[in-house]
């Protein structure tokens, strides 16, 4: 029999339904993989009992003929989602020991659908980072190694780096991620898996530790496009508890998957051809264009003229919102309190926040505070909001000429841990292709497309019109079928 941990979400769901194996067998197999992969540091908390309990329920439901959509499927939960009774930290010292008394909407939907939880996945602290090097609980190590014979530890991407590493290493078949400026897509690309950020508002933000509320959006990460569609169907949906939740029915994305792109137009944004970029990235992009043509699509050049301003816009808006959102961590109501001897309230706030936030989080709070402060608000924040309008307008104009947009996910393959930590700006630049779709609230996904000369995965990104996750998934499927990406990291952990 195939090793259970090599099965996809769809295969586990269907195999369990058909009686090929029990859900308990599946949960035990993944629990064992999780327990044996401490070297990757992908989990902050492991919850084998949660996975087993859900599995027992799934087996009982099968006997009773009352199977749920994801009965028998264990998943990983990014530690940014509040989970009732299970520590939720956002990978911060500030929330170390925080045990929510409620469940996030997205995780609640997944448990209702029959999923079990293997554990809470590591991430960049408060989801701020692109390499998972800002976690208070240590770096996540990518399961991938370069093929140069060296042993350099590579970044799994960020901020959903625990999610990406765990899926690539077969510790879970799928996981939740969140994407504020590429945090699902870039880590998916770095480890050769798929991930989709849906239209802003598809998945409820209720119970997700807030970073930048106008950008934050949850989505699934998994090994293939079908699994992303299945997971997203069970994560999305209107939630009255989130003021920005979309009040729209959830389409049956899995059933409507089709890689036949006849009659579809694929836009290639000329501004994404960056000077000095690794030629392997451009070559992969060209190969992707050929794949979509082969699937029947017509390819057209489009222009997104404000592309170069997307990153600086993001690095004003996201820190501004973060500085406001993270004001709640004051040492009074929950989380860390640092009360120096004889200190008053103000000193307690300052000491608590100095102790509880890591350097990158402090940096972003400081930037955000500055751009929102009196005298600078209009020059920085209002200006960035206006440029954001122009960036969204670019996409509106482009989508008059095409149905989806194809671009690389990231400007490089996975880099080594420590290679970019000295210079925050060089780290930010890794999200150059991911951030524009976030600013415009558009659905976008990454699918694995190729290995580079170092033997590391590269991802292609598909950006769609608002609400058209189906178009994104279908184009992703067309690439998946043609790229035939089957490479996986050799086990060393």
């Amino acid at each position, binding site marked *: 029999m195939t090793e259970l941990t090599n099965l996809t979400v769809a295969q586990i769901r269907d195999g369990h339904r058909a009686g090929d194996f029990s859900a308990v067998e599946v949960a035990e197999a993944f629990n064992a993989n999780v327990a044996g992969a401490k070297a990757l540091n992908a989990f902050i908390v492991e919850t084998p009992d949660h996975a087993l309990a859900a599995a027992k329920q799934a087996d009982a439901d099968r006997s009773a003929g009352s199977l749920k959509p994801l009965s028998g499927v264990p998943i990983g939960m990014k530690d940014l989602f509040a989970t009732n009774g299970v520590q939720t930290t956002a990978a911060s010292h500030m929330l170390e020991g925080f045990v*929510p008394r409620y469940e996030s909407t997205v995780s609640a939907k997944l448990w209702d659908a029959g999923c079990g939880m293997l554990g809470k996945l590591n991430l960049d602290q408060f989801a701020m980072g692109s390499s998972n090097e800002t976690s208070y609980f240590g770096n996540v190590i990518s399961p991938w190694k370069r093929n140069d014979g060296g042993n350099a530890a590579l970044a799994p991407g960020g901020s959903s780096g625990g999610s990406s590493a765990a899926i690539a290493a077969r510790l879970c078949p799928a996981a939740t991620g969140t994407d504020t400026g590429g945090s699902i897509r870039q880590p998916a690309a770095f480890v050769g898996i798929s991930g989709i950020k849906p239209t802003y508002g598809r998945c409820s933000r209720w119970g997700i530790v807030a970073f930048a509320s106008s950008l934050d959006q949850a989505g699934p990460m998994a090994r293939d496009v079908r699994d992303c569609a299945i997971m997203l169907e069970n994560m999305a949906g209107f939630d009255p508890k989130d003021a920005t939740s*979309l009040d729209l029915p959830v389409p049956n994305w899995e059933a409507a998957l089709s890689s036949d792109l006849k009659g579809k137009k694929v836009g290639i944004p000329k501004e994404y051809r960056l000077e000095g970029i690794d030629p392997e990235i451009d070559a992969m992009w060209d190969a992707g264009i050929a794949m979509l043509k082969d699937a029947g699509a017509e390819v057209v050049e489009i222009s997104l003229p404000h592309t170069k*301003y997307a990153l600086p816009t993001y690095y004003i808006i996201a820190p501004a919102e973060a500085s406001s959102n993270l004001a709640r961590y004051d040492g009074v109501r929950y989380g860390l309190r640092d009360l120096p001897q004889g200190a008053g309230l103000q000193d*307690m706030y300052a000491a608590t926040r100095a102790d509880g936030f890591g350097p990158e989080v402090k940096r972003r709070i400081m930037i955000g505070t500055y751009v929102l402060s009196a005298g600078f608000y209009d020059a920085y924040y209002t200006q960035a909001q206006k*440029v954001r309008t122009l960036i969204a307008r670019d996409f509106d104009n482009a989508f008059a000429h095409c149905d989806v947009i194809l671009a690389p996910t990231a400007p490089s393959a996975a880099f080594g841990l420590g290679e970019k930590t000295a210079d925050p700006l060089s780290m930010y630049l890794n999200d150059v292709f991911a951030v524009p779709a976030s*600013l415009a609230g558009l659905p976008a996904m990454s699918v694995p497309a190729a290995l580079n000369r170092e033997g590391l995965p590269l991802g292609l990104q598909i950006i769609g019109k608002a609400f058209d996750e189906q178009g994104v998934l279908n184009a992703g499927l067309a690439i998946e079928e043609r790229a035939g990406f089957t490479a996986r990291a050799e086990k060393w952990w």
Partner: protein
Amino acid sequence: MAIDQATVRKIASLARIAISDAEATAMEGELNGILGWVEQLGEVDVTGVEPMTAVIPNKLRLRDDVVDADPLTGGNRRDDVLANAPAPQHGFFGVPKVIE
């Protein structure tokens, strides 16, 4: 516009984050690097452009104006609310003395 040590300290104070001299020095360079880079936005012509506040057009909903409209976020949840408080006292959040 370059920011100096005094500005770094002012921002830290506004953000309620205690910083050491060494951190202030390091942060001065980093913040100047980032702010210098984002200043390129100034060159974009935004005449007549509205600032974006909601990325997907959405109408703000109002919940029913009743007590406990949502049992999860409504009233009578004191023990849940205090469960993670660092220093709860007598059913309240405890804070250091603010009046001498």
